[in-house]
């Protein structure tokens, strides 16, 4: 099947070539970090996690969101998602691969990474994250592989795959819950010490992930002549609307608790986030951009007339992704460290090498998705899907 990815238009090769160049730059930059140490990043004693872990957190959500197409299709037999389900599963695979890479580049001593599976430690949430993420990767590879090759042969998928599909649904919820637990079980970090973190992660995931999927569907229609159908897109639109509204509601709940209780160690983080503390205000413009984008996205999504308009719907999806990428990535991760447990306000600003590595990993994800989608499209065109 993979040979289908080796033929394509000039446009296709141009895109693949660009991704390969970005991957190359990212890889070379990573070698620099590997050989010299992580001091080439903006991370330091007070902010030990940053851009890498932010991307990881955001992408776990995108990965988990595959459940939003898998669940209606397999559990409720929602046929309109027939052409989209495998796209969602592929998106999950690409996202989990990126997640694992982001964790890998964040590790100071990557050659010792096997110490994790060799010393299983159930008390560590990182241990559980490893289990749920690799399990989720396995499930999605298996399910998409089996269902897709059955489809290719024009037969029904074998019955034994069904339990795996069912398991993949709560499993998707688990990956994002465990990722939230990574943060919200720490007495040292009051900003994350909130039970709503996991639900908030899930809500934002179920908005951002399907929004990604909408963009992908539009691109596939334009460049690969593959149409998932209006109804499927409209349904995704509804899902995004609900999820985004719930996410904004959850964020407001957090704000209320912090502002009204007026407990300084909770309040200071929000102050840093939206107002800045002294000269430390790197995140402020980002957070207000995120806030404006989320309002814009909600207006576009909630008004049926806007959502029905293709251009505005696309814009809504882009604003959802932009807003959540900031809020849940940089905003959520970095603010946990500012102020520090010793009350110090030390800002983190990502460095160029760090950004190049991040772009490199995103390019790996896009390349994986491009190849998967290319193969899927070629096969489906062959068997007469239109």
């Amino acid at each position: 099947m993979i040979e289908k990815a080796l033929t394509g238009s000039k446009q296709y090769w141009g895109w693949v070539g660009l991704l390969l160049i970005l991957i190359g730059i990212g890889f070379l930059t990573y070698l620099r970090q590997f050989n010299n140490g992580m001091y080439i990043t903006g991370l330091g004693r007070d902010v030990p996690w940053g851009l890498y872990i932010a991307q990881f957190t955001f992408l776990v959500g995108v990965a988990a969101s595959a459940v939003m197409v898998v669940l209606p299709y397999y559990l409720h037999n929602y046929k309109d998602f027939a052409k989209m389900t495998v796209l969602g599963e592929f998106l999950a695979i690409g996202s989990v691969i990126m997640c694992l890479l982001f964790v890998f580049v964040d590790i100071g001593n990557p050659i010792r990474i096997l110490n994790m599976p060799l010393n299983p430690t159930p008390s560590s949430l990182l241990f559980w994250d490893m289990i749920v993420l690799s399990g989720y990767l396995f499930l999605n590879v298996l399910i998409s592989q089996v269902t897709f090759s059955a489809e290719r042969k024009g037969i029904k998928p074998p019955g034994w795959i069904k339990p795996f599909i069912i398991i993949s649904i709560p499993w998707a919820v688990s990956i994002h819950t465990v990722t939230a637990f990574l943060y919200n079980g720490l007495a040292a970090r009051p900003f994350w010490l909130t039970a709503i973190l996991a639900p908030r992660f899930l809500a934002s995931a179920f908005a951002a992930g399907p929004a990604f999927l909408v963009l992908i569907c539009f691109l596939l229609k334009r460049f690969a002549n593959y149409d998932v159908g209006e109804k499927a897109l409209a349904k995704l639109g509804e899902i995004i609307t609900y999820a985004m509204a719930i996410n904004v509601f959850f964020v407001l709940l957090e704000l209320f608790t912090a502002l009204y209780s007026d407990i300084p160690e909770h309040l200071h983080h929000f102050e840093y986030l939206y107002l800045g503390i002294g000269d430390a205000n790197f995140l402020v413009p980002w957070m207000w951009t995120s806030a404006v984008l989320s309002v814009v996205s909600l207006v576009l999504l909630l008004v049926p007339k806007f959502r029905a308009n293709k251009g505005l719907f696309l814009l809504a999806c882009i604003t959802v992704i932009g807003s959540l990428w900031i809020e849940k990535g940089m905003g959520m991760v970095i603010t946990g460290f500012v102020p520090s447990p010793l009350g110090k306000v030390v800002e983190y600003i990502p460095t160029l090498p760090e950004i190049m590595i991040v772009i490199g990993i995103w390019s790996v994800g896009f390349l994986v998705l491009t190849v998967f989608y290319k193969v899927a499209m070629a096969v489906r065109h062959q068997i007469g899907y239109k």
Partner: protein
Amino acid sequence: MGINRRNFIKLAGITAAVGVGGKKIMGELVDDTTGLPVVDTAQKASPLKAKRWAMVIDLKKCREKQGCTACINACHAVHNVPDLGNPKDEVKWIWKEDFEGAFPSADHKYLEEEIRNSHALVFCNHCDNPPCVRVCPTQATWRRKADGIVMMDMHRCIGCRYCVVACPYGSRSFNWRDPKPFIKEINPDYPTRMRGVVEKCNFCEERLDRGKMPACVEACPEKALVFGDLEDADSEVRKLLREHYTIRRKPSLGTNPEIYYIV
């Protein structure tokens, strides 16, 4: 035919063992702080043991000698802690933190100025219930049951920094770069670290093993640091705790720190 894999591993093992052994022999001949050969009997002293090691720090005595860094210097020299010269990449085992940073809940605007403007000596609290140990995915850090020291295996640590994130006291340092070029004088008796691992105060467990008190305790000219067994009712730490009002850092978090401060 040459060396096969099994033999190679054997050979490597023997070489390593000899290497380690050699270092140890050297270590017994060389003093920790000065690096000079020693001919004293203290080296052969039996290990210091306790059921629960703890420390009481008399900040009053500390305040009397403003600017004194004897304990810090001693600790950092003994443990090959580098001086990187910038706060971002800084590695430190023990340092002076401003009062508000060390005891945020004990600070208020009208606090006795002498205290408010003072600095408190801070380092790993060797908590009874350490969050860093809970989060470590490789058990590279653990609480030693015998005496409560929170240990750190810098050879197992993968450098994920989850422990740095989980410590409420900022007591852990990560090696953002190779520390060796930044160590003034390498003490051959204690290992240096590589880039990408976490380190922290170890209550001088390597010195206790050889019958010596922690370097900071030994170095303090005011005897402001007292180290001893919390389980032993007759120990000096227990005596101090009985006789003085003491506080701990962030006790409300339930970590149960074992460093007590006389303010």
